[in-house]
């Protein structure tokens, strides 16, 4: 007899979109990432590459290039518009038509006073960056042919522009082109095709590095306009280039999925003159085009058509082997922040899947039979798609929620919130839109229903939470809960307690506010921990809140007593096991077993874990002596031990790693003690990707 009946849901055919552009802000250590569907994601590199924010996309918007100016983020795209983003409200602040046709690239100078864009019509347009806006300044000399890539000299006096078959160097004060660097075409059949200079980099010693569609990385002297060196790196395109901060290394991303590093090395040791660019390492972490690259202090970040974001640490920058030196592959970061993509009606057995353009409502299958652990039970009723709801308007859906009774459904875009009433009698389902919504409710970062479905909570701007009362006929604005700290960051997590008394909300400043819903006021603030909470849940009976942070730390906080529980203190004193701390992916969901109040159910993208607070916790201090296998047994090895030995090896963390080849989106306990696991095999995702460039493999 198994502990749980498990629904393994595999009909969620979620497909992430390709990465198009990337920009790294070295001051705030935030990486901005643009995807093909126009959405922008912000990763915090100081906090375990945690995905802090997601700005949802829009149908008409396509982003070709991203650029940070101080803490402000700009994007430009083929729709010909420049947009600035409001990172606090997770929406575009404004967008500006540049009147130059599709824009291929946007850059800023190092001083952060000017922006330059490269347009299809061959103009480089300069914009002045003002306090709250940007303003067109002037055009540089118009060229024939489109401007594909731009790079500003660090001194700000020159701009290198990659075009078709050539590179132009502009003098910024006069606006005239001073150099014309002709780029060779490819060999053989591609001779007749124009070479596209996909990327250029202008170094402070006036060296121009270019990557083009003929597969070359070329080094030019920007003063004289002469070619210094050609590295033929691939048969296909070199799509992206990135220079390290100290200009000692350049990385190039190719269509073959490789990232090639070039280093500025003196030919002889002890003598630092006459350095030259030498091709050194090759990293192959992608299967498809590498479209976006960023070389940061300690790592190379790359992303492309295969939708993965890969953080490849440069081992020489680390003193010793540590957590940060491991290779990271962040598969589908859309879903890391929270299970915003899907929600589950625990009582009704319904699942809501959120896609950028639509919502799908499914009813889970059912089975009467019982079996041994590991058995596959035959289904009495097959899972059923009840509803497909297409969104209105251009904006993509940013969040959605389903009440636990299955009677309410709500979703929000950047511009509007919609609430629907669902009625399911036997096999009929009817949906009615709640027509009158309170004015205050115009957009939400998070939506959440109370457990009795009488209230809905919407996370609004400046970390405030709107409380909406739901009745059969209408919905009514009740109150706005505001934090005392005055944080302007958006809320990314919200959870309510089972008895409907408490609401916890976490924002990107790592603060967690607990509100008393009966008194409609702030109850307490959980002590701020240095890492962003990645998942939290309030225990239905004890009202203890379990919080898991991006750095894998685990806390339990008693809301009633306003302090950490004894178990949590003991855990912190003992420390967590290294194997637990070294995991790549943050915990995305916390839920509880109503039958056994000691059990906390956690999961991340690849594993599923039950923490039993009754058992001893594996102690990290033995780690060095006995090693991982000595103490951190997983369930399989435990099962193989004899009955006498087993208790001595039992520990609090019970980990199930069945999901290593697939992504785990949601594991939630339904009221009838059955576990819903929504997974997506990785193979299913990779098989939907377009075919990679053809490569001859040896011996095939």
């Amino acid at each position, binding site marked *: 007899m198994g502990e749980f009946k498990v629904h393994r849901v595999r009909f969620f055919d979620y497909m992430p979109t390709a990465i198009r552009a990337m920009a790294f802000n070295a001051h705030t250590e935030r990486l901005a990432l643009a995807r093909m569907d126009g959405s922008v994601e912000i990763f915090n590199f100081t906090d375990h590459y945690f995905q802090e924010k997601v700005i949802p996309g829009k149908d008409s918007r396509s982003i070709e290039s991203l650029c940070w100016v101080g803490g402000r983020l700009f994007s430009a795209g083929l729709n010909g518009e420049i947009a600035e983003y409001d990172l606090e409200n997770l929406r575009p602040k404004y967008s500006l038509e540049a009147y130059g046709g599709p824009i291929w690239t946007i850059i800023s100078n190092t001083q952060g006073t000017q922006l330059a864009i490269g347009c299809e019509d061959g103009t480089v347009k300069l914009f002045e960056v003002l306090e709250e806006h940007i303003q067109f300044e002037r055009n540089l000399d118009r060229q024939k042919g489109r401007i594909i890539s731009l790079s500003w000299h660090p001194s700000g006096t020159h701009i290198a522009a990659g075009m078709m078959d050539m590179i132009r160097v502009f003098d910024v004060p006069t606006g005239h082109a001073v150099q014309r660097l002709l780029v060779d075409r490819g060999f053989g059949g591609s001779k007749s095709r124009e070479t596209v200079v996909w990327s250029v980099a202008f170094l402070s010693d006036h060296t121009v590095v270019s990557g083009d569609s003929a597969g070359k990385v070329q080094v030019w002297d920007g003063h004289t306009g002469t070619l210094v060196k050609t590295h033929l790196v691939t048969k296909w395109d070199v799509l992206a280039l990135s220079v390290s901060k100290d200009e000692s290394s350049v990385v190039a991303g190719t269509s073959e999925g490789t990232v090639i590093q070039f280093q500025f090395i003196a030919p002889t040791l002890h003598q630092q003159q006459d350095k030259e660019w030498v091709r050194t*390492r090759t990293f192959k972490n992608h299967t498809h085009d590498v479209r976006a690259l960023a070389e940061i202090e300690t790592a190379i970040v790359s992303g492309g058509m295969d939708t993965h974001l890969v953080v490849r640490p440069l081992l020489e920058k680390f003193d010793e082997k540590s957590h940060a030196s491991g290779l990271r592959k962040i598969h589908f970061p859309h879903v890391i922040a929270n299970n915003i993509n899907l929600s589950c009606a625990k009582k009704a057995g319904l699942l809501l899947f959120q896609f950028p353009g639509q919502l799908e409502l499914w009813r889970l299958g059912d089975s009467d039979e019982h079996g041994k652990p590991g058995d596959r039970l035959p289904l009495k009723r097959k899972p059923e798609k009840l509803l497909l709801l297409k969104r209105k308007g251009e904006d993509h859906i940013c969040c959605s929620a389903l009440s636990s009774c299955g009677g309410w459904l709500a979703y929000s875009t950047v511009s509007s919130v919609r609430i629907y009433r669902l009625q399911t009698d036997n096999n009929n389902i009817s949906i009615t839109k709640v027509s009158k919504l309170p004015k205050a409710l115009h957009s939400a970062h998070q939506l959440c229903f109370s457990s009795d479905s009488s209230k809905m909570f919407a996370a609004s701007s400046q970390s405030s939470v709107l409380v909406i009362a739901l009745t059969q006929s209408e919905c009514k604005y009740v109150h706005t809960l505001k934090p005392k700290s005055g944080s302007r960051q958006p809320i990314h997590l919200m959870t309510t307690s089972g008895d409907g008394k408490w609401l916890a909300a976490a924002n990107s400043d790592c603060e967690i506010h607990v509100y008393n819903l009966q008194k409609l006021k702030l109850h307490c603030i959980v002590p701020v921990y240095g890492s962003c909470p990645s998942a939290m849940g309030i225990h239905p009976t004890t009202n203890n809140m379990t919080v898991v942070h991006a750095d894998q730390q685990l806390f339990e906080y008693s809301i009633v007593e306003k302090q950490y529980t004894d178990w949590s203190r003991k855990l912190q004193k003992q420390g967590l096991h290294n194997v637990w701390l070294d995991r790549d992916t943050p915990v995305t969901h916390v839920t509880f077993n109503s039958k056994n109040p000691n059990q906390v159910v956690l999961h991340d993208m690849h594993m599923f874990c039950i923490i039993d607070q009754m058992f001893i916790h594996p102690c990290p201090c033995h780690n060095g002596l006995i090693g991982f296998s000595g103490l951190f047994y997983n369930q399989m090895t435990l099962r193989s031990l004899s009955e006498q030995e087993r208790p001595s090896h039992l520990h609090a963390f019970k980990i199930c790693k069945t999901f290593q080849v697939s992504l785990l989106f949601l594991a939630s306990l339904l009221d009838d003690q059955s576990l819903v696991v929504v997974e997506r095999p990785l193979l299913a995702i990779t098989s939907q990707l377009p075919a990679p460039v053809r490569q001859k493999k040896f011996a095939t």
Partner: protein
Amino acid sequence: MVEHAEIRMVHRGGSKINFREPVITNDSRFLLCAAGESVNVYSTSTEEYVHDLQGHTGLVTGVVLNPSNHLQVYSCSADGTVRLWDFTDAILIKTFIIGYPIYSIYVSEKHGGVVFLVVPMANYKSSELFQLVAVHLPHSGDQEVEARELSAVLCDVSPHAGAASFGREGEYIAAVRGLQLEVFFFKKQKSYRFSLKSGKKKGAKNAFTCISCHPKEDCIATGHEDGKIRMWRNFNQKKEYTYSTLHWHHGAVNTLCFTPEGTNLLSGGIESVLVHWHYTQENQKDFLPRLGAAITHIAVSPDGSLFSTSHSDNKITIIQSCVKVSAVIQGLVKGDGVWTNLIIDPRSKALVLNGKPGHLQFYSLHRDKQLYNLDIVQQEYIHEEGLDQFEVVKAAFDARGDWLATVEERRKKGAELEINLKLWAYDELTQSFVLNTTVTAPHEDQITAMFFSPSPETTMLVTTSLDGHFKAWLLADHSDANEGFWACDFVGGYHLLKPGCCSFSADGSLLSVGFQEVVTVWSPASWELLTTLSQPPGAIRDLCFGRLSCSKYLLGASTKNQLCCWNLLTCSLEWSTPMDVSLLQTDPLSENMAAFCSQSGSSDLFVFKPSEPRPLYSQKALCTGKVQHAVFAPRDQMLESCEERTQWLNRSQLYFFTQHMDLLTFSTKTEEDRLLASSKQLMVDDSVAVTPFYLLLGKHRGQQLEKQEALTNPMAERTQLPQGSIAIKELLHTPAHVLPSASFLCAMFVRSLLISSSSAREEKEHEEGEMEREEEDSEGEADPRLGESAAWGPPEEFGAPALTKAQERELRKVKTFDHSWLSSLLDC
């Protein structure tokens, strides 16, 4: 002549020339390579063997040019010495005694007077740990110097050549072993280690195989087992080092070498393709494919014009200007094993055995050179593991060398055996063998033995096979104008027993076939079973008829430690002795027989006459393992040893293969002395590369002339022509700027011509005086003229010793004349 009758086992010929990286001299004229216990010097332009540097008593494990004198080389050996040679004259200059077996040697220009050697770790003599030590070579006038001041540089290095390399200007040395690269900087006395992960998880094999440092820049190239080449840079930092990867080879990279200017990197591996990487433009590479066998070493001449690649089939290829194979120095090919017996080709006196897959090689033992390859199988050889190929397993020559019979077979697992018997006729025109008859499936099972009848009347071939029969093959009569073909003449058997060996008597009148325990004797003329001899227990392994005075004896070796000798006249056992004989071999030129016995892991040799109970020579513990192949090779010049122990070596030399495929032979002290003397003596004209060929030709020509004169007029003008010709030659060969004035020379030249015609009488007198002195020299000998006439008349067998004498004397004479002429020139 005083004889030191010491018989020594020596490597002579057939040694591995691909064992270590060869050295090309500064002027690119010579190539030096370690070959067994000596260093061979070859001419790079003619691929001829010039001479060798003899003196080491162990395997030579490395040769390097002396960085401070480009006319000298250092060689190191497993005998624990480093020797310094003048390679142009093959003179040993100095011997440094190190005291430990040395595995490789490295030198650098910056470290003058210091050699870097790889020796076993002192504390772990037996184990497999090696260290790189620097040895200061002491300056001293002595020939033999002890150099025991070793200072360790790197510990735990690989003993293989090519596992260490000096960096730019000798500032550092880099060595690889296993998964680790270590770079030692001499100035800072600091070493950096870089290790790679084994990479087994990802299917890569990252272990290092070889290393080469860029001569001008700080870049180290390392080869790896999975065929990758890594170029390391910035290796003076523990963390910020960096490398790039090149990948073309699909098998392990065996060797790497930068050209002296550093513009190119050469690499080679099992693909037998020389890959030519352009430094800094690694995407561009050139290939020199189809080099024949896997490349094991690459060497580049100091001016970069010549490359040499050593190959796994014991071959050195010399490549000119990166693209053209200009010369091939081919040693004895020792593939996976010797399948055929060792045979001596009666015509060329070459050693014949299987060489390259599907080929038969003809190897001249005297010149230590492969003469040619005969393609037997005549099928494309596909290099792939686990593929069954046709192999040449048997070969035999008839007595005159007109016919060659070969057997090739291919055994597939679980499939039928494929056998072909091929008969080849010698073609005088093309000077090689031409296929005459192919018999597919001559027997139903493996052929165990194959011999031609030695009788001069008939050419008959007998094959015995495990299918229970022996077959006689005869050349069908020449009824039509064309050559005849071979056909089966007789099929014999004996009680369905399996024949294991056969042997013809020396005159071909008897054939004995060993059917397990029974020896049958047949008459080939009538195919009549004459008698059976049997001496159980044990199956007969080897059969041999005695020769010359012992031809009435038949010897057989059985598997059950018995060596039996039957008297064919009485058809009874003459004697038998308990011996585990693994190989029985007869000397074709004498009564002697050699028996190799394996005893407790090593082999013993007994040389005996069947008629005498006492062995002529015995040597215990010859080598480890069983000796399976041996042959008596007739000498071209007979020795005159009176010593009883060495007499058996007078007419022929015994060559044998040890288990480790080393070709060894026996040599006496006298012989070695003679060789040494001749090599010194013949060092006359160094304006031309002295090749044996040249010497042979020159000598022969001189002798011919002398002979003619001796026939017409024994005394008159005997040395006139040679003398005159030498004078002219000297005149023509001396560089113009050192010649005396033309008027002076002209007079002398004319006079030299005049002498020949006018004052012959006077010369003759002088000549006679010379001769008398000569006679006095060789006391108690017969009239030299008599010896001379004997030298040219009868066949070699009788006159050979006299001939040697005569020749030697002639040579000495030529030499004295040389000197007289030279002195006369100087006096004038």
